[in-house]
């Protein structure tokens, strides 16, 4: 039977990794790290998890070692955040391009300069196009569950792509939440052992990572794109199976109080939990608003988004990252481009807020909804607005 315990979300991820019985964890402790890998190291040191723990000398090497261990067919995990994710940037493309199903938890945090250790989505947005499957968690349980799902999705033969599970730095990584922790045998029912189809093996030599001249490179990229798109079916299937075993179900996006709502707020990550209470509050006051919690960031759920907003007049999107000199936040850009081709589409209003750990309270979201509705009515000469920022 699953136990429900109060635990720091980072530490619960270490338990999920143990339950997944990973073979290799490679991680660097700074730039910055969380309790995730500290706890994994402890589990290995105590013999509770039989795995190789590689305390590498940088995040670049952390992800590089993950490539090596995944290529021999070992179930592989790492965690990082912020500058660390940037340092492993070029290696991320290799993991997806070479079909190595590494699973990584990313504690989303701001980027320097100025130095900030606090949460936002600046780090992950530069990793948006790396070809990884990316899932955003809104709370501790979602994080825990999706780390387990990530292994199953990544290692499925139809997928064989790396997966990032995003959890907001501090707002999730450093809070204690009640989380259901399943038993190992329940996890074993859901998560089959990892069988990499063609691992590095002297008895069956393969060449991995050949170079691609112009006569083949575009085809490899097309195949990768099609593969990532097709992974959505497996993601949905895994979530359904997960619901069957554990009773908690996940969708690419979750609609909260969206029935009949003409105004929809859209957020990704832990802030969507606060936004829920703002929606409740505004609804109590008589305004029909709803909330879309975006969970699957890559592959992007175009159809689900179009369907979710089809009856709305206004969609207000909160981004926790800034595309400097661009059209606003990356999430807002995606939503706009997903809806642009529709004959009837809602107005999309973009806000960028919550940067570098700046909190947005329930009242903040209430203000955001009001301001968003106003902008939709009057129009604005700005592409987006910075929310909760002093002039």
């Amino acid at each position: 039977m699953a136990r429900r315990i109060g635990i720091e979300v980072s530490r619960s991820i270490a338990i999920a990794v143990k339950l997944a019985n990973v073979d290799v964890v490679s991680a660097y402790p700074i730039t910055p790290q969380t309790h995730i890998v500290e706890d994994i190291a402890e589990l290995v040191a105590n013999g509770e998890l039989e795995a190789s723990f590689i305390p590498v000398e940088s995040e670049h090497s952390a992800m590089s070692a993950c490539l090596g261990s995944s290529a021999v067919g070992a179930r592989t995990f790492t965690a990082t955040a912020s500058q660390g994710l940037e340092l492993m940037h070029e290696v991320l493309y290799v993991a997806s391009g070479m079909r190595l199903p590494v699973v990584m938890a990313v504690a989303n945090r701001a980027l320097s300069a100025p130095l900030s250790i606090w949460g936002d989505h600046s780090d992950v947005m530069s990793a948006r196009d790396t070809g990884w499957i990316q899932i955003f968690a809104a709370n501790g349980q979602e994080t825990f569950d999706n780390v387990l799902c990530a292994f199953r999705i990544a290692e499925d033969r139809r997928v064989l792509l790396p997966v990032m599970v995003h959890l907001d730095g501090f707002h999730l990584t450093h809070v204690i939440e009640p989380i259901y922790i399943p038993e190992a045998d329940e996890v074993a029912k859901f998560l089959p052992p990892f069988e990499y189809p063609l691992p590095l093996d002297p008895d069956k030599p393969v060449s991995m990572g050949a170079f691609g001249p112009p006569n083949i490179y575009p085809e490899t990229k097309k195949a990768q794109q099609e593969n990532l798109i097709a992974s959505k079916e497996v993601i949905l299937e895994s979530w359904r199976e997960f619901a069957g075993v554990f009773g908690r179900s996940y969708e690419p996006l979750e609609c909260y109080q969206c029935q009949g709502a003409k105004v929809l707020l859209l957020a990704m990550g832990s802030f969507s939990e606060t936004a829920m209470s703002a929606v409740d509050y505004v609804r109590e006051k008589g305004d029909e608003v709803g909330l879309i919690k975006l969970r699957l960031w890559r592959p992007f759920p175009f159809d689900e988004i179009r369907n979710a907003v089809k009856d709305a007049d206004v969609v207000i999107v909160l981004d926790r990252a800034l595309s400097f000199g661009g059209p606003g936040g990356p999430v807002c850009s995606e939503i706009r481009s997903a809806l642009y081709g529709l004959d009837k589409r809602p107005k999309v209003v973009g806000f960028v807020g919550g940067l570098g750990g700046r909190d947005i309270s329930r009242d903040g979201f209430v203000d955001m909804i009001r301001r968003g509705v106003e902008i939709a009515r009057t129009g604005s000469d700005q592409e987006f607005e910075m929310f909760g920022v002093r002039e």
Partner: protein
Amino acid sequence: MEKYSVFVPKLVTRKESFAPGHRACVGCGEALAVRLACKALGHDAIVVSATGCMEVVSSPFPETSWRLPWIHTLFENAAAVASGVESGLKALVKKGKRPDREIGIVAMAGDGGTSDIGLQALSGALERGHDLLYICFDNEAYMNTGIQRSSATPFGASTTTAPAGKVSIGQVTWKKNLAAITAAHDIPYVATACPSYPFDLMTKVKKAVSKPGPAFMHIISVCPTGWRCAPDLTIKIGRLAVETGIFPIYEIEDGEYKMSLDLAELRPVQDYFKLQGRFRHLSEEMIKRIQDRVSKEYARLKEKAACSQKQKS
């Protein structure tokens, strides 16, 4: 050497794990060194290549020269990828998912991928004590991308980013001492080698993979394209690099130095320089300066080897 020629086919496997048909330049010393290393490795090995000449010439999709399991990912991370391969195999063997047998894990990179951009990853892998062999095939510049200088380019050589000119002699820094740097990690085995001495090279590769723990080999690889020399002189120039003391071949086994070829007298460096266009511009004064340093360093190396021998006895 002549008396051995009859026996050579019996001494060395005919099996080519680094298959012919690759696209290395004519006279490539590195391709020869890789070929010899692969012969020494035998069947049970996994090769991790860094980006560079050998990766590019051996793996244009859909062709491959590798008959050993082989992986290439990036430029600076061969040591880290090899760390992952080793740790992954170890974990799988422990859990009974792979048969327990000795597999030589060998990272291969050029001088740029080792002494410049990959030095940190290499240091990390050596310090952590992974059971792997890292081989640096040193052709003394970024040859794959057009002969740009690296920290392994020798003093006085002309390259495209440190060209000899009216006010410059080309490279103005001395070659980074990779063997000393890696030996400073207190690893069980460090060796230098040259494909002009094939048996020495193969013996060292075998020893390096069979010794538990990290091992490092530094192999000089004559590059006719970048060194501006005739491609039929590769073996000769390799020998001259050793015989002049410019690239001495030796081992550091458990901290003890041992000369593989202990020369009583060195040939003048000029013998080596005059066959290569990259040194053509050097004045007599510069050559003398280099000669002094080479002689001094060779003497120092011999001293270390003598000291190790003395301690042993």
